[in-house]
Structures are given as C-alpha cells and as structure tokens.
C-alpha cells in the first residue's frame, strides 16, 4: 500500500482539526511550564497552512508539505513555528515531486524531518521537548518496517512510540525551551510540544492506517 496525494491532504485536514480540538489542552500544558500559547499558536498556523495547502496544484505531495512548512514558519512564531515549519519543510524535501508515499518514502521523510528539527533546536532525547516523541516514533517505524510489518501497522507502532515518548516527558527536568527556566519545577508536567508531536503521528496512523 502507499499513501495517495488525497490521503496526504486529508491527513493535513485531520491534523488541523485535531490541533483545533486540543488547542485548549495544549495551551494548558504550556501554561504549566511555558507561556500558555502552544495550542493557540499551532492552531493559528495549521488553519492558515490548510487553507494554503488546498490551493496547491494536485499531484506533488512534496509541494503540499513545503507549503504547510512555509506557512507555519510565517504564521506560528515562537519555538513551535520554526520547529514544526522545519519538520514539514523536511517532509517536503524528502517527498519532492512524488505523487504518492510508499513505506520507505515515509521512513526517509520522517528521519529527515526529525534530523531537521534537531539541527534547528539542538535538542536530544531527554531534554523534555517534541524530540522525545518524534525520535522514538522514527525509530519504531524503522524497526517495524525492517521486521517486515505492514505500513499500516508500522504507522500504528510509530504512533504508540510517540505516545510513550510523550508520557516519558512528564518526570523530566527540561533542558531546552522555555520550560528549562523552571529548573526542577518543570518535572511532573507533560511537555506540550511532545504532545502535539504525538497528535501528529497519531493522526498519520489514523488517516493512513485505514488507507
């Protein structure tokens, strides 16, 4: 199986809707250890990105991702903007010109996206950031595909790994981002960015999983 252009766009739609639905939750998480804007910012950005994405000429999956990335960079701001912007831009680089995404395409695209976010943000696993959800998701996907698991199931495992990674941020003391200013006080709270990243991978599995 591979993911069609339409399924990519419908994922962007679903992810946008999921962020909108969880806007308050993400903002509350950011209130505890940040500045109470993560959900607000990402929602504003994805609404704009979806509108732009729908105007992209059909066919090129990479162009959709690039458009979403560019729009996030220019509408979100904060840490979330450059980071999610970079994530989507890198998905776009890896899938440039493709009309559909096969399992191996997604493995490469996700790897490139995570690498891009780390190049921007210099965060490692354990710093209590979105990387704590993204890196395990990337690795779980790779392992599953290596083990010959179907694309659908590999996406599911990737999402499960992201969820675990998200949970793993709760006890951590933040070393990157705004939460790091709280020192010890940042422990005991789930990281908002790791949470939105989990939602990203969960919606991928949900939408493409039943593809």
């Amino acid at each position: 199986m591979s993911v069609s252009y339409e399924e990519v766009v419908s994922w962007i739609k679903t992810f946008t809707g999921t962020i909108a639905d969880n806007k308050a939750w993400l903002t509350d998480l950011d209130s505890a250890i940040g500045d109470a804007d993560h959900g607000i910012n990402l929602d504003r950005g994805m609404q704009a990105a979806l509108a732009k994405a729908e105007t992209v000429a059909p066919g090129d999956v990479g162009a959709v991702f690039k458009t979403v990335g560019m729009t996030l960079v220019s509408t979100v701001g904060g840490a979330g903007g450059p980071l999610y912007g970079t994530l989507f831009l890198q998905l776009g680089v890896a899938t440039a010109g493709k009309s559909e995404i096969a399992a191996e395409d997604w493995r490469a695209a996700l790897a490139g996206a995570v690498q891009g976010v780390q190049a921007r943000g210099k965060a490692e696993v354990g710093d209590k950031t979105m990387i704590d959800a993204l890196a395990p998701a990337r690795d779980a996907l790779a392992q599953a595909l290596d083990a010959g698991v179907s694309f659908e199931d590999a996406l599911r495992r990737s999402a499960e790994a992201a969820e675990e990674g998200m949970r793993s941020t709760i006890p951590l003391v933040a070393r990157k981002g705004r939460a790091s200013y709280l020192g010890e006080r940042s422990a005991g709270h789930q990281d908002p960015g790791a949470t939105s990243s989990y939602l990203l991978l969960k919606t991928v599995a949900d939408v493409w999983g039943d593809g």
Partner: protein
Amino acid sequence: MKKLINDSADVVREELEGIAAAHADLVDVHFDPYYIARADAPVKGKVALVSGGGSGHEPMHGGFVGMGMLDAACPGEVFTSPTPDQMEAASKAVDAGAGLVHIVKNYTGDVMNFEMAAELCRSEGTEVESVLVDDDVAVQDSLYTAGRRGVGTTVLIEKIAGAAAEEGRPLKEVADICREVNANGRSMGMALTSCTVPAAGKPTFDIADDEMEIGIGIHGEPGRERMPLKTAHDIVEMMASAVVDDLPFSKGDKVLAFMNGMGGTPLIELYVAYHELSKFLKGRGIEIARNLIGSYITSLEMAGCSITLLKLNDEFVRLWDAPVKTAGLRWGV
C-alpha cells in the same frame, strides 16, 4: 478575563493601529507583515537596529523605535516571538547600507526565528550582526540548556547602542557595544500576580493572596520559586543580592539602577521598592549614577517588578544621556 479589548484575536493588530494613530510623527506602522519602523528610516549611513519579540511587553519594543534607539521593531502575537518574514521585511525597510544589528532576547523561539531571518537577509547580501541578550540571573546557565533569558538589560542595550548608532559608529562597534552592555547587565524579576494571555482567557498560573513568584521572566510564566509574600525590603534584598553577587558588582562600582514594573504595579510601589534598592546598594558601597523607574518591559497586567543593574563606564553614561525621541523614552530633544 477583564481587559480593555475587543476580540482577543485582534488585540495586537488594534494595538498597532493605536500606535499608528498616536505616533505617526515618530514611526510608520506596517501591517503585512507586522513591523514598526522609524518614520525617517532608512537613516543615511547609519547602522540599523532591529529588535522584536512577542507582544505584551509594551512599551518594549515598539515604544523604543525612534531617534537614538531602534530603527524597527517586530511585534509577534502576545508572548510569541515574531516570524522570520517580519524581521526580514523590517530589516529591508530600515537597511541604510551600513549593516544591521538584530537585538535578540535569548528565548528559543526568538533565537530560531531571528536566525532564519538573518539567513534570509544574508542570502541577499545584507550584513547582519545578531546579538543575544541573556541577563536573567534567576536562570542558571549551562552548556546543555537554553541558557539565560533576556529581560531588563534589553531596554538599556537598545538605548545605549541606539545612541552609538546615531553617532555613526560602524556595525562591528555597535554590535560590540550591545554585547558589552549585556555582559555588564544583570536582572531578576518577581510577580505578585499572574497575567492573562488574551487568547487563553484565564490566568497563566494561580497564586494565593499570601504567595509570590520569584525569578519570573516576562511571559507570565511561573518563576524559579514560589514563596510566602514578603515585605518590599525583603523582596528587594533577595533580588538585589542575587543580581549583585552574580556579575559581581563590587564596592566602588557606578551603576544604572533600573526598577521596572511588570505592568500592573503602580509607580507608588516602584518608588517604595526603589528606596529599598538605593539603601541596599549604598550598603554594598555601590553608587547609583543613573536610574530608570517605571514599567518599560512588562508582562501584560502582571503585578510585580524586576531589578536590573548595569555596571557603568564613562562611555555608557555618555550614550545613556544622549538624546532619545521615542514614545517610550524621551529626553534631550
């Protein structure tokens, strides 16, 4: 949420319209993308200073655009750093060919967005020096963390480097003055109350009537520590000690003492606190040669204050005293 606003989604735009209506003699306000530029920019032969950050810190930065201070400021959404296209557009608008200084407060978001903007500017052949402000002693610095936040010293950098640029000093020198002020400035803040991000609609944190937050930043975030509410004397002593011991400031030093309000604290309290600060510094043998008292770098309607001390040298004093004409700071003209 009780605020003098309309739809919370329009606060930043409507604020900018207010600034445009009020200060057309000083600044041009651009709406797509958002930036505030000196009315007479680009100023021939002058190094251009561009700063920016989330909104909610007024008068910083938009109120510091004008003769003797910034050439442009980029306001983001409330507490959200602006986007690279804003800094790029602002930079292009004020670039007079003598190069640009980006004054960036050390927050992950500000740093990454300004980084992208600088990349865009350089790709078009504009010389950009980025300077980081990280003066908050409440945050322990370390190689493995995001480092210290940029707070009160930002205002002093914008005034002092702005005067240097006005004198026609070259790019490298203006950037170095920014770094030198940052290296000699230290700050610490505290909050009596939280503030409410308009789009969030409720206070960022809850705090009891007998508690306070020590070591806060300027984004309504909780501080390093919550403790029982203390007297102005004890609060100032606690913050000033941390500030003085960090640089350290020592006996005989001349300083600029900046007693800043967080937005909801009235002047009467700031003067009570300044009295405590002046007694404390006298006790340490440190002389206040210049001062600034008022709400200049704020967290919306948060009640609280921050103390910034800058170790002065003759050049800093001269540049501080130089004429400035902005909505937020004005003297000598």
